[in-house]
């Protein structure tokens, strides 16, 4: 190799500069070069004068003073967890204990079956007392799992909770190297050595406390959002419920009966909708969308866009004159999935909340052709206002509940089933609208092709669910929905022949299996077999279903008048907007990811943001309501506590070293670091309330004046050295 490496990169400056020139075309790139170069330049020169940038105004000669690190000489205790057999079956924990106890600052090292358990925590506390430990290392599961638990153990002994370091021997060692126990043990030693290296440099940190805005934002006005809003409002907090469509109610409002009790969906839902509209603590933002969200737990700011309805909501009484006078009445009604029609001035369904009409601008004669205005002339309350504009409102809330629901799987993606090609192939949700007394046919279950009553109906399961070509997951509600719909079909037409084609019938809930028995006794035929294809008979629009009967082991064909596709549930297309605004994580199936699948099922990784309903994954109404109440309960905790503590792992500027270059100011997207106007030299200062601890400023600082607590340059450097030293 031509270049001999030296411990300082300082002497390579000419190489870097020669590299710089061609890149100067792009100002931003050049600026980034500066950052990386300058941090290189500042490099290894920690304990001697640092000279920076050749521009005279930037020259500053300082020396880093020996700042006190931690409370006193480190006395480290190392606790290595067996995690039952999860770690100990692979990693030789005794060997790791021996290895750890040889380090100079380690005064105590031990292994324990479950460090997180009560005896495990007692062991930590006892040894903090006994050995006067001032640093604790727990080598166990991921720090994302039990960091808070162990911090509390330190706190209980009067030790600063940030003098804890967790190293991940389970998720990132024993569980991923299960067939290489020897190498896993060596790696475990290296990881523990790295933790020890970092622990010697840990400093006590004090979290800051912030007050909490006593209000919550609920996004989505389906049954999940309604339940969460009512619960939060009943606890006593102000709730902003934002719904995208002109009415709350969501998918549940479209259903006719609910399984397995056959409650009328409207009868149980609409009173709750009315409760929402009348609750003094709830502000309902219907026909509105959340545009942006900023801030953090306790202090979120959200911008809501209230779309123009072209009808003044305070004047509209919902009398419906505008709709009845409107000359355009042939718009496919979205609520009825296009099976019925509506006027341009409309409410989605008669029980809509709020009962305010909306003018559909896209199809309005006045907006498209500049003529008409009949609604304006005929409205008895002068509520029509063609000059209305979208309105932006900024609200402040302490916590956020996401209840954005689901999209029905688009059955067109499975063309072999003929949806939209054959008139008598419908989805399960369309069936609900057909059989609903408030639906387009007034509750008559008839064939769309000719309006005749069907004599033979097929329900086809798993459309877009349990299918490697579309969604691999089970949508959980379709089996019971189809069984219920089969029952309803039999109820309407007792002589009709009803078949359900299934892969597995999953009737797992309370009273579900009993309902299935009942439906079988009513004469519904259950056929185990996946339907391969549906053909149409052009003469009479009848349908032939080709399927494999897996119990008989035969491929068969059967004719039907009508086929109902049990389309599955999918993440909402527009959920991504919320995901981007809040930086939430998604599961592999693209539903929102909970903080822990078992122990934190309604929290997200973003503090103060909670999940409920089908936004988190497919579930039926009982589960949605239970989860919504759980989310409301979780979201009320910070509101009740009235204050939240922030992570103290934030940036700190050493004024001695700051050269007032303002690079940090330009990289911080939170405006959390800026020139201190009270300082003569305008050196940088961190706003501790705004700093989120990402560390971008520390990485960019050419003077290395910024310390990123919890992730300092020195700590990471020591970790690197430890990780790159082979254990003996």
């Amino acid at each position, binding site marked *: 190799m031509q270049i001999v490496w030296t411990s300082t990169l300082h002497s390579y400056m000419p*190489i870097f500069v020669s590299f710089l020139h061609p890149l100067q075309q792009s100002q931003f790139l050049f600026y980034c070069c500066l950052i990386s170069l300058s941090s290189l330049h500042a490099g290894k020169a920690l304990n001697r004068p640092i000279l920076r940038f050749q521009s005279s105004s930037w020259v500053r000669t300082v020396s880093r003073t020996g700042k006190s690190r931690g409370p006193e000489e480190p006395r480290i205790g190392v606790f290595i967890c067996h995690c039952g057999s999860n770690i100990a079956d692979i990693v030789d924990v005794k060997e790791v204990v021996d290895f750890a106890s040889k380090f100079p600052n380690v005064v105590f090292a031990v292994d324990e079956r479950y460090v997180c358990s009560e005896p495990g925590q007692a062991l930590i506390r006892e040894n903090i007392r006994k050995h006067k430990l001032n640093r604790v290392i727990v080598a166990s599961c991921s720090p994302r799992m039990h960091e808070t638990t162990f911090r509390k153990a330190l706190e209980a002994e009067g030790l600063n909770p940030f003098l804890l370091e967790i190293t991940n021997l389970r998720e990132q060692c024993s569980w991923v190297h299960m067939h290489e126990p020897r190498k896993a043990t060596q790696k475990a030693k290296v990881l523990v050595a790295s933790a020890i290296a970092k622990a010697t440099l840990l400093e006590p940190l004090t979290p800051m406390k912030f007050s909490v805005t006593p209000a919550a934002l609920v996004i989505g006005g389906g049954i999940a959002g309604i339940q969460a809003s009512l619960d939060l409002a009943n606890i006593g907090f102000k709730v902003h419920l934002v719904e995208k469509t002109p009415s709350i109610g969501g998918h549940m409002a479209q259903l006719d009966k609910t399984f397995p009790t056959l409650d009328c969906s409207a009868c149980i839902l609409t009173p709750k909708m009315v409760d929402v509209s009348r609750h003094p603590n709830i502000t309902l933002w219907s026909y509105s969308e959340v545009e942006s969200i900023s801030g953090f737990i306790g202090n979120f700011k959200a911008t809501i866009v209230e779309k123009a309805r072209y009808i003044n909501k305070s004047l509209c009484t919902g009398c419906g004159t505008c709709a009845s006078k409107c000359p355009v009445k042939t718009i496919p009604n979205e609520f009825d999935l296009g099976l019925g029609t509506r006027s341009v001035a409309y409410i989605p369904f008669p029980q809509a909340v709020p009962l305010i009409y909306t003018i559909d601008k896209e199809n309005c004669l006045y907006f498209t052709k500049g003529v008409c205005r009949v609604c304006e002339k005929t409205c008895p309350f002068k509520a029509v206002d063609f000059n209305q504009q979208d309105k932006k409102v900024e609200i402040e809330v302490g916590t956020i509940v996401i209840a954005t629901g689901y999209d029905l799987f688009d059955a067109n993606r499975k063309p072999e089933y003929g949806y939209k090609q054959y008139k008598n192939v419908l989805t399960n949700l369309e069936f609900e609208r057909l059989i609903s007394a408030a639906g387009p046919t007034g509750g008559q279950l008839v064939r769309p092709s000719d309006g005749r009553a069907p004599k033979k109906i097929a329900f086809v399961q798993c459309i877009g669910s349990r299918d490697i070509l579309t969604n691999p997951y089970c949508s959980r509600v379709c089996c019971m929905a189809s069984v219920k719909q089969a029952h309803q079909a039999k109820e309407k037409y007792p002589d009709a022949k009803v078949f359900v084609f299934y892969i597995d019938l999953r009737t797992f809930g309370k009273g579900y299996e009993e309902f299935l028995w009942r439906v079988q006794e009513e004469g519904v035929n259950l056929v185990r077999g996946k339907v391969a294809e549906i053909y149409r008979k052009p003469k009479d629009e009848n349908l032939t279903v080709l399927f494999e009967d897996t119990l008989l082991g035969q491929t068969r064909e059967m004719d039907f008048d009508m086929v109902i596709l049990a389309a599955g549930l999918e993440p909402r297309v527009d959920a991504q907007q919320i995901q981007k605004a809040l930086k939430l994580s998604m599961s592999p199936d693209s539903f929102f990811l909970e903080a822990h699948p078992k122990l934190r099922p309604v929290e997200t990784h973003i503090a103060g943001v909670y999940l409920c309903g089908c936004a988190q994954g497919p579930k039926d109404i009982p589960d949605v309501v239970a989860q919504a109440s759980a989310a409301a309960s979780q979201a009320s905790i910070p509101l009740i506590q009235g204050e939240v503590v922030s992570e103290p792992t934030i940036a700190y500027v050493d004024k001695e070293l700051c050269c007032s270059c303002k690079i940090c100011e330009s990289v911080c997207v939170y405006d959390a670091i800026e020139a201190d106007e009270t300082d003569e030299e305008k050196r940088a200062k961190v706003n501790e309330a705004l700093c989120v601890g990402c*560390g971008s400023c520390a990485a960019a600082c050419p003077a290395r004046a910024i310390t990123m607590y919890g992730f300092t340059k020195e700590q*990471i450097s020591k970790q690197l050295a430890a990780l790159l030293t082979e254990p003996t």
Partner: protein
Amino acid sequence: MTEFEPVIIGLTCNWCAYAGADLAGTSKIQYPPNIRIIRVMCTGRIEPEFIFDAFRMGADGVLIGGCHLGDCHYQEGNYKTALRVSITREVLKSLGIEPERVRLEWISASEGKKFSETVKSFIEEIRRLGPNPLKGAPEA
């Protein structure tokens, strides 16, 4: 002669790639133990010098894992990383270190499989490249 076993340093952000590595663990997706991970809150914290330090101290490769572009928990830390890493690679090249020894990947919290696949393919690539050319070089 025993086969060359590369030592890889992983620098991963807490929210995505580290969580993805955790998911690989929970899902018991196996990969070779050559990688040793340091957790930072955001890849935006990663200074080019961490990478240079890693090579100076003998690492054969550095894998940086962050959130997908647009998904950064801190809005745009990963964009800064992308730029810093591309420049770091150029500097490494001028120092005689193959830029392929630094890999930047976007791995979300749900991509446990992607994490393990990335680690495996990176180890193979480093195996092809051979040991860090600085190993054994005198410290000045």
